């Protein structure tokens, strides 16, 4: 009998070796006598380098090389602008090693190669640099204002890019509105903060002219392309491998970090392998941040709370450079209306430079910022109209019969217009309201207030554009010596269980167990085409490609088995690793046997393959050994290219208690309803959602990059940048909904970012609800006890 693996809580193939400590993360990669790199990074946010002297460092025992921008030849120039945009007026990307001016604290200035990291750091200490401080601007509003210090010369108002998008008739909507609600929302800076920092290692085989690079990246194919281009090497001579990666969260999809160019180049130049492992302090100063946006939103609405128009003007802080383009801002702009109809939209984003670490996507990638803005605005509107905030949401949710729902004029991260394809938004809202106990909450809250306790209920709806193109591919192959199934795809894994979920897809098609399937991701030599893992796309895009390839293998297996068993293909079934006549156990041939038979051989190198040689019965037929159009082997390669993104959705709600004496907040209960279409593995999906929620809690109440006005990052440490631990994250009740997407054969949507999107919005909503007696308005995250204290004090000063 064939077992159905898709949809099951299958335990992971990858766990045993990771639990035993046998993972191979970047620093575990075995290299032959490597040099170790360390970087001199700018201590200043903005300064001219007037003198740099590396002689003492070069002379230090154990040091092989010390390089500045003058020593790196073809690498000395701005890195590529990864994702260009027609409205990008003033793109600026950084050089691998700064020339003349540094623009953020942490920017790389020089690199040391030495016998070990300890010695390399000693040498970095010996590099002498004189700086002439230049004016610094850290606050994005100040940076965008007239007269602000210039982060880069010749960039007016420090503005890299302005994009204006609209649909419907916003002017009319606002002119005819019964009420216009205005709100301003601020999201402060955070970062992905994976547990494994970044790292790059490279080894150059001069004789073969081959470069091998290990990079803790989400995008080895992109890295390979860049290295080939920069180093003048052909693609088939450069192999980039993402080994086990200890978390990515978007931080590791950004290219080209300076180290990703310098380390491979160094290996070629010096002729010895080179390794660089980022330390945690460096990570704070040299791996990208995200989240800072300031939204000024207006909602035009009828007296009944129907939102007819939305205007949003927002500033997006891109940091000192804009290597990843405006992806984060673009996604925020496209998601600002959330799951709501709002037929007329008018959104302008402004990407602005500041003297801070550059910005590129972090789980959510603009969606958390958009969600916070629209959700709090909807609640503000409801309050102004004297309507129930859940009812106002309900009245505006896109209904099931309105799909596909287009927002023409809004171009999503895939270059396509926004089309919400499917979902059951109202049903999800109902499910959450029921599960969190909304109906009885007013009474619960009143009773608590009578006891002097301040509890509040917060809720946020979200949508998540997922599974964007351009494409991914996969090869599925039955190995003829082991009978195991090998799967290879070009994108990568940072804990999302691809070795299991992809195996489940294949297992169903080929009638094997997921533990019989070996999945390789992230090695350009194993599969050389594709894009990367980001934006909740891997399951959708690679998953569908894998499904197609597995289906093709299945069809070939049946075709071949029909020949081998002299049976009609219609009478055959695939199960238990074999193709057999339906209902028979003996009239069968294993996938391994078929794999052998599908590769016509002259030489029998073991007993099994004798069956495939020219004189063996399997090949007794009239035609040529390898028929026209057929390929040898039981394998297939297939591709999937989505026409458009598919949109997941959900609603989270929580009840919190604010202790107004200490201003601390704790969760009392948390419910999450999410819909990512069909789930390959609910256990894995839960892990993704829960992990996202924890990061969302961080962004709501704990995590904040504390930049001083001088551009110095005050808290480049996990001691003072507060990532939530098990103690700070509440237990979560998860409800799965599955509204399959019509857009891909598997009916799946992405879920990687879902958990992180609504949490800051719901936390703000909950705290505001708890502190309603004080008249507190929450418009900024993260909150903290001292901020809550200030909010209460401010609200008390203003009479209700």
């Amino acid at each position, binding site marked *: 009998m064939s077992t159905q693996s898709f949809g099951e809580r299958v335990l992971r193939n990858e*766990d045993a070796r990771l*639990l035993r400590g*046998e993972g191979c993360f970047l620093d575990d990669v075995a290299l032959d006598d490597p040099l170790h790199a360390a970087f001199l990074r700018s201590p200043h946010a903005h300064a001219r380098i007037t003198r740099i002297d590396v002689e003492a460092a070069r002379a230090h025992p154990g040091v092989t090389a010390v390089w500045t921008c003058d020593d790196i030849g073809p690498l000395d120039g701005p890195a590529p602008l990864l994702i260009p945009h027609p409205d990008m007026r003033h793109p600026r990307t950084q050089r691998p090693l700064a020339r003349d001016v540094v623009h953020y604290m942490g920017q790389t200035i020089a690199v040391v190669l030495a016998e070990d990291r300890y010695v390399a750091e000693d040498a970095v200490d010996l590099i002498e640099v004189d700086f002439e401080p230049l004016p610094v601007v850290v606050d994005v509003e100040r940076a965008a204002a007239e007269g602000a210090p210039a982060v880069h010369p010749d960039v007016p108002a420090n503005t890299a890019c302005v994009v204006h998008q609209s649909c419907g008739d916003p002017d009319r909507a606002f002119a005819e509105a019964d009420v216009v609600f205005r709100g301003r929302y601020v999201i402060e800076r955070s970062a992905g903060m994976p*547990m494994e920092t970044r790292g790059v290692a490279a080894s150059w085989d001069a004789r073969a002219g081959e470069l091998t690079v290990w990079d803790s990246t989400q995008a080895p194919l992109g890295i390979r392309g860049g290295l080939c281009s920069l180093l003048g090497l052909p693609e088939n001579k450069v192999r980039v491998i993402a080994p086990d990666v200890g*978390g990515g969260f978007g931080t590791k999809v950004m290219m080209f970090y300076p180290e990703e160019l310098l380390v491979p180049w160094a290996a070629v130049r010096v002729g010895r392998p080179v390794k660089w492992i980022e330390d*945690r302090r460096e990570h704070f100063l040299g791996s990208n941040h995200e989240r800072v946006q300031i939204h000024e939103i207006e909602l035009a609405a009828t007296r009944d709370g129907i939102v007819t128009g939305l205007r949003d003007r927002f500033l997006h802080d891109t940091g000192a450079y804009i290597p990843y383009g405006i992806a984060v801002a673009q996604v925020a702009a496209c998601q600002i209306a959330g799951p709501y109809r709002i037929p007329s939209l008018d959104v302008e984003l402004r990407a602005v430079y500041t003297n801070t670490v550059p910005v590129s996507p972090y789980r959510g990638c603009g969606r958390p910022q958009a969600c916070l803005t629209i959700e709090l605005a909807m609640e503000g509107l409801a309050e102004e109209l004297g309507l129930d905030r859940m009812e106002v949401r309900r009245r505006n949710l896109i209904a099931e019969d309105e799909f596909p729902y287009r927002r023409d004029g809004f171009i999503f991260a895939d270059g396509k217009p926004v089309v919400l394809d499917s979902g059951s938004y109202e049903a999800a809202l109902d499910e959450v309201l029921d599960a969190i106990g909304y109906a009885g909450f007013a009474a619960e809250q009143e009773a608590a207030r009578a006891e002097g306790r301040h509890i509040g209920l917060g809720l946020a709806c979200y949508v998540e554009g997922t599974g964007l193109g351009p494409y991914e591919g996969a090869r599925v192959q039955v190995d003829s010596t082991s009978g195991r199934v090998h799967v290879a795809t070009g994108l990568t894994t940072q804990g999302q269980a691809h070795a299991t979920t992809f195996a489940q897809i294949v297992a169903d098609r080929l009638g094997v167990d997921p533990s019989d399937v070996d999945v390789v991701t992230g090695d350009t030599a194993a599969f050389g085409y594709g894009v990367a893992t980001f934006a909740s796309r891997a399951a959708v895009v690679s998953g569908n490609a894998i499904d197609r390839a597995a289906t093709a293998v299945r069809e070939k297996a049946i075709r071949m088995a029909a020949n081998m068993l002299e049976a009609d293909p219609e009478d055959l079934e695939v199960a238990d690793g074999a193709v057999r006549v339906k209902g028979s156990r003996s009239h069968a041939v294993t996938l391994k046997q078929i794999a052998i038979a599908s590769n016509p051989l002259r030489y029998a190198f073991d007993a099994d393959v004798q069956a495939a040689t020219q004189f063996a019965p399997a090949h007794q037929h009239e035609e040529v050994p390898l028929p026209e159009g057929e390929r040898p082997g039981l394998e297939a390669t297939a591709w999937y290219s989505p026409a458009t993104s598919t949109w997941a959705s959900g609603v989270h709600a929580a009840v919190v208690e604010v202790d107004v004496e200490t201003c601390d907040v704790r969760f009392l209960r948390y419910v999450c309803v999410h819909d990512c279409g069909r789930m390959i593995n609910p256990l894995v999906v839960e892990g993704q959602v829960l992990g996202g929620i924890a*990061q969302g809690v961080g962004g709501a109440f704990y995590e904040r990059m504390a930049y001083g006005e001088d551009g110095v990052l005050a808290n480049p440490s996990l001691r003072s940048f507060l*990532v939530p631990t098990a103690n700070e994250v509440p237990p979560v009740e998860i409800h799965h909904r599955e509204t399959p997407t019509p857009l891909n054969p598997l009916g799946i949507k992405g879920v990687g970012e879902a958990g992180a999107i609504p949490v800051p919005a719901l936390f703000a909503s909950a705290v505001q609800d708890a502190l309603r007696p004080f008249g507190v308005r929450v418009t900024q995250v993260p909150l903290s006890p001292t901020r809550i204290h200030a909010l209460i004090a401010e609200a008390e000063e203003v009479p209700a």
Partner: protein
Amino acid sequence: MSDGHVTVALTVNGRRVERETSGRRLLSDFLRHDLGLKGTHVGCEHGVCGACTVLVDGRSARACLMLAAQAHGADVVTVEGLTPDDGTLSPLQACFREAHALQCGFCTPGFLAAAHELLEEHPDRVDFTDAETRAALSGNVCRCTGYAQIVEAVRLAARRRHEEASPA
């Protein structure tokens, strides 16, 4: 002691080892690179994330906050030492797998050490509450799982060890 170099003799995962190393060599680097025990991971080198947690003389400790020299004469157990020799998983490891308590796996060895200590220090507890477990694990940071499944794994391990000891 000559400038820079020390001889460190200790027991690691039950085996006696002796190495010469630098006085400033961190225990985390010593275990990983001098002894080739790569299962202990380095996440921060300031003692906060817990990824490098090992057992020193039976107690959890951050390997990044010890000099190798300080481990002279000590009995150190790493994740490799918490793993059975026969290729199977320990009961605790099996619970982690069942509960999906790991995603990328980078923080996992540190969590195993912390969970191991919790279970060892309270041998008679049949279960820990959700809140107790979270407090006990609050010294280890995970960015992937959101913790719920790790908490479940540890509680499962506590319950299961008693089920096995006294089958119904």
